[in-house]
């Protein structure tokens, strides 16, 4: 089966890039400040965004550009979209905040984010995605593994799209590389294989 990459989006300290082209560059702002700037400038308009931790904000904003504000999925049944991600640092930032606050009054809103797969939950809530979803803990971005897994999903189950890639936030460094994979003969940028790292 030939799977194609419909679009891909990167969000790191340099800025946000879609299909290899810059959408907005970051002039040395912290993640917090840059993400808020992006939220306002592109009028994301999703009040739940502000409650999220930084890992989820990173995943959500990258998804916004990947999916054109959700437009790409509008005509696709929710069960035909899957999300399979890799991550290394888990939810370390929220974990640390929760750990530090435990002796006083721990915040339930912080604890909610002490799992890496919550970012997938947030993506599913915003874009109404109900297909298979998984979060694999990896040392680094294992494109070979993800390629195998996603290919299997398309082969065995009726998926129109799968969002796959790597989202990681360790407090200092952050990287998100999301790929929208499809199996239909739409205009794809590239074939989906284990060499997708060459695109980023």
């Amino acid at each position: 089966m030939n799977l194609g990459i419909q679009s891909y989006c990167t969000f790191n300290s340099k800025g946000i890039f879609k299909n290899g082209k810059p959408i907005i560059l970051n002039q040395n702002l912290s993640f917090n400040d840059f993400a808020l700037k992006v939220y306002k400038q592109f009028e994301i308009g999703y009040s739940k965004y502000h409650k999220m931790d930084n890992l989820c904000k990173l995943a959500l904003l990258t998804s916004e550009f990947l999916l054109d504000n959700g437009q790409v999925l509008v005509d696709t049944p929710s069960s035909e979209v899957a999300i399979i991600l890799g991550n290394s640092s888990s939810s370390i930032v929220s974990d640390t905040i929760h750990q530090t606050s435990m002796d006083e009054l721990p915040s339930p809103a912080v604890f909610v984010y002490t799992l890496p797969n919550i970012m997938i939950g947030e993506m599913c809530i915003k874009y109404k995605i109900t297909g298979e979803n998984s979060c694999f803990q990896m040392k680094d971005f294992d494109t070979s593994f993800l390629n195998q897994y996603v290919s299997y999903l398309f082969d065995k189950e009726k998926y129109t799209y799968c969002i796959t890639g790597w989202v990681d936030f360790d407090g200092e460094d952050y990287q998100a590389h999301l790929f929208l994979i499809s199996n239909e003969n739409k205009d794809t940028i590239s074939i989906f294989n284990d060499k997708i790292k060459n695109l980023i």
Partner: protein
Amino acid sequence: MTERVYVTGWGIISALGNDIEENLHALKNKKSGISSPLFLKTNYANQKVVGEVKLSNNDLKKQLGFEVSKTISRTALLGMIAAKESIRLSGLSSNELHSALFFNGTSVGGMDVSEVHYKAFLEGEEVNYKEAFSGHDCGHSTETIANYIGALGETSTISTACSSSANTIMQACRTIKGGKAEVAIAGGTDALSVFTLNGFNSLKILDDHPCKPFDKNRKGLNLGEGAAYLVLESERSVRARGANVLGEVIGYGNANDAYHQTASSPQGEGALNAMRKAMSVADDISIDYINVHGTGTGNNDMSESMAVNSLFKENMPLYSSTKAYTGHTLGAAGAIEAVFSLLSLRHNLLFPCLRVDTPMDVISQPPIFDVVEKEVNTVMSNSLGFGGNCSALIFKK
């Protein structure tokens, strides 16, 4: 023809006991493992009850042959005990293990060790960073367990909250069916930690007394800990080495609820979709019993009831939640309950929802209240995780 996946080994440690036999004994005799924490150092020791494994870390280390002075997370220790039993009971040789894959589900990882040393660090004490934090990552537990049992093939770590080890079993099955492996060990492990106890307490979903899943007046869940692993094999491998078969995995499915980070949708859409997918993989076989996720929270048990009702309607199988025995073992729950499902199949015994005084009346029949002796050929097991990650597995005799 699709490759079939058989279970040829199993291992478990939980609040009910330290191996398969002890867990079966407790289940049969309705002996719950919920009690005040003995080993977990928490300010809530007198206020909360948990499903704690009845062995200290030193006991676990001695059993595994480690020096008690060695720093090893309880998550990894529990995992090694259960994985070791699964290999022993499978009869796999060390050669056959060399290429076996290992799939581990966990949410706590080495947090039980990290939290102690982090607190010391915040209080200005001297901390050996490598010793304190090198075991923190979920993946480190996976590698530790895989190396201990000699499974030298690729390892995979899944962290999707309460469905983690159901997802590892599903993944392992797919890998075998896809012809990428003949043998895979899959399951999960999570230890109690102050981190999770405080966190769940802040969500106000804990019951300070032993929990009552599927009771109208249920107050919440009890946290638990434990580990369980299944040895899964292709038909080819089973025939080649004459392996003893404990059961077969015939269905699995995963879906997202897309509703809330930690609460389930009122109609249980995610659970319903996961169960439907599992049924589809199992060619819509008739289900004799469901080991429901049944945590004992107001939200989960209602949502899951709606989902189960929607799917089975008048053909409702018998069902119960074994979390009344073990507490909610988080990342290990899927695998622990997979073992319990297989115990039901092998012994034709169904284990009850303990402590139900007033059953919920959403499903057309209440859960089972007592141990039931009944021929069962198929069991479905649900694991519904935070982040809307919902999974269902189906096992056959």
